[in-house]
């Protein structure tokens, strides 16, 4: 690929300090550990994992809401170097916008749709005339599939799907290059979910947007992603092109996650990679590979060292020392 990535992250890490209380020692929570990836225009990178795996921390770091503890973030060729408490340059902030899971919570109930859409322009395009702003807001309202008469209504007058459309419109007002979508359809009903996914696909094509799509819903991810990062306990355990990862999941966690997802086909026989227990507490990380306590392939070796991401084939990288065994296990199950 000789295209320029719009965003690249190398060893992106975010740790949080927990202050000690009367009965507890201070601790460090490693919310995000060593995430590296590149994002290209018009492509979708999906980040998959369960709650507490660092998906949302990644979103906050990418949108420059929080600085990374270490690692490098480059957006549109500019390296972002942020210190704690520092605000990123406005020009960079315009490039990355975020859409949250809950459209009921992310819109101000006291503002009309048009006011909300005009606000980013008011702050960032000070030279723009009020009538032009209004015009731009109305254009965007139609782009996301709402009607012009919706402009002067308040958020409570809309359904969940329509509210998510408003949030998308607001994020696009400054013509960003990157959209971070944090579980954008998981609060929506199935019939509405498909409408919003189609809208996102249309907008991506029209504006050449790059999406970072954070989700736990694998059937949605499989449909829209070009590349996938599977995360567990703050670190990527498997990355690669969506086709390759979905057709042959290689990390035991990816395999367990995929097989735990219910499939809407009653004729399919279930073959589960069973997963015992629950994710470890971030305050007491297990030694070595964080997945070892729940892994069916775990050996003593696993608890000694945290395995790094290593290329196994083409573009797929996996962080597991027993990859060969895991892949063989799946092939056996398929054959038998």
């Amino acid at each position: 690929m000789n295209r320029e990535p719009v965003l690249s992250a190398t060893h992106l890490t975010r740790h949080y300090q927990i202050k000690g209380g009367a009965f507890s020692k201070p601790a460090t929570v490693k919310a995000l550990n060593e995430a590296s990836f590149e994002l290209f225009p018009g492509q979708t990178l999906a980040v998959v994992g369960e709650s507490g795996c660092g998906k949302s921390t990644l979103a906050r770091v990418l949108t420059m809401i929080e600085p990374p503890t270490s690692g490098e973030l480059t957006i549109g060729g500019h390296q972002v170097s942020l210190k704690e408490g520092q605000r990123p340059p406005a020009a960079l902030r315009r490039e990355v916008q975020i859409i949250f899971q809950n459209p009921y919570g992310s819109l101000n109930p006291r503002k009309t749709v048009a006011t909300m859409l005009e606000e980013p322009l008011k702050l960032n395009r000070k030279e723009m005339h009020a009538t032009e702003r209004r015009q731009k807001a109305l254009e965007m309202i139609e782009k996301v599939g709402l009607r012009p008469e919706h402009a002067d209504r308040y958020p409570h007058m809309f359904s969940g799907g329509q509210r998510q459309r408003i949030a998308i419109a607001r994020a696009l007002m400054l013509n960003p290059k990157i959209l971070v979508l944090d579980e954008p359809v998981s609060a929506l009903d199935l019939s509405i979910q498909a409408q919003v996914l189609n809208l996102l696909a249309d907008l991506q094509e029209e504006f050449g947007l790059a999406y970072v799509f954070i989700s736990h819903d694998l059937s949605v991810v499989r449909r829209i992603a070009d590349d996938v990062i599977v995360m567990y306990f703050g670190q990527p355990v498997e990355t690669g092109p969506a086709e390759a990862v979905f057709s042959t999941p290689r990390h035991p966690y990816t395999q367990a996650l995929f097989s735990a997802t219910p499939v809407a086909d009653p004729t399919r026989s279930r073959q589960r990679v069973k997963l015992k227990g629950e994710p470890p507490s971030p305050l007491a990380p297990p030694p070595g590979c964080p997945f070892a306590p729940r892994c069916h392939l775990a050996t003593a070796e696993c608890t000694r060292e945290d395995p790094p991401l290593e290329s196994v084939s083409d573009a797929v990288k996996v962080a597991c020392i027993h990859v060969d065994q895991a892949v063989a296990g799946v092939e056996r199950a398929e054959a038998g």
Partner: protein
Amino acid sequence: MALLEIEGLSVRFQTSSGLFTAVEDVDISVDRGEVWSIVGESGSGKSVSMLATMGLLPWTAQVTADRLEFDGQDLQRLSSRQRRRIVGGEMSMIFQEPMSSLNPCFTVGTQIDEMIKQHKGGSRKERHERALDLLAQVGIPDPARRIKAFPHQLSGGMSQRVMIAMAISCDPRLLIADEPTTALDVTIQAQILELLLKLQEEKGMALILITHDMGVVAETAKHVIVQYAGRQVEKQEVKSLFANPRHPYTEALLSALPERAGDQDRLPTIPGVVPGQHDRPTGCLFNPRCRYVTDHCREVEPVVAPDDPARTLCHYPLNDPAEALATPSHDVSGHPPSDGQRPPEANDVNRGNREVRP
């Protein structure tokens, strides 16, 4: 006779802007040891109909039913004291948010104990042993320690296990699970569903699973009821529902699933939204969103054909079983083919091609 027998259940709420019908004319008949599922989007009345069965709705709700029987007892005629004995004991329910269903001020042991004391009695020691045994049954490691835990000390999956332990503490014959795994991660969801099915089989309980997730329906239930805007639109066995949906809503819902969309560029969608209190259409409730709609649908409310095993609430049901048998003479099931009634434009649509215009 079935264990739970509901006919013509309707629930209305008195609201400031008039009477709102949340559930209308729902029929369910669940036999011992059966696994049923009620599926629908938000606002389809799936929870309300089960809460009405349990008698857990607030006083503003007006519950009416032609028949509402549990194990031969008419629930509508029982005194609240008698009903209280059945609810929680023989018929029990778990809810979506395990964290908010447990009382944060008491240990889980106390809360399980309360259930057993209320319904079964026994000495303190017996009850304590029963509680320990229940925690072990639902797969909580180290029950002796966990029994003293407060809800905030447990994860979501563990809390849901405690809820299940409470619900099965009195050996119910019917367990209603209202979105039991919606708030949980997929790997934990798989564990909880497996646990529910294991307990259902071991104890021979009937299980009603309320969900919005077609994947969960496909993997757990045997029979399924599809609800839309408070009406029951279809009732079938799970396998035939996925293979041959009879109601256009079910068909549209299934084809909106990303995993069933195949290689199409765009996902098939259902235009519009579920009608609310003030924008109920005339005729069939689904008509503004239906791709097979005719003028007849816009004017006349559909009724279930008396000979339809799937109880489809539609003027023109799809995938007629008689047609599906592919016999040129349509007399196999003894009733005439519905082709004659179906509008010509619906016939022209190639159903294999599920693309729906937005």
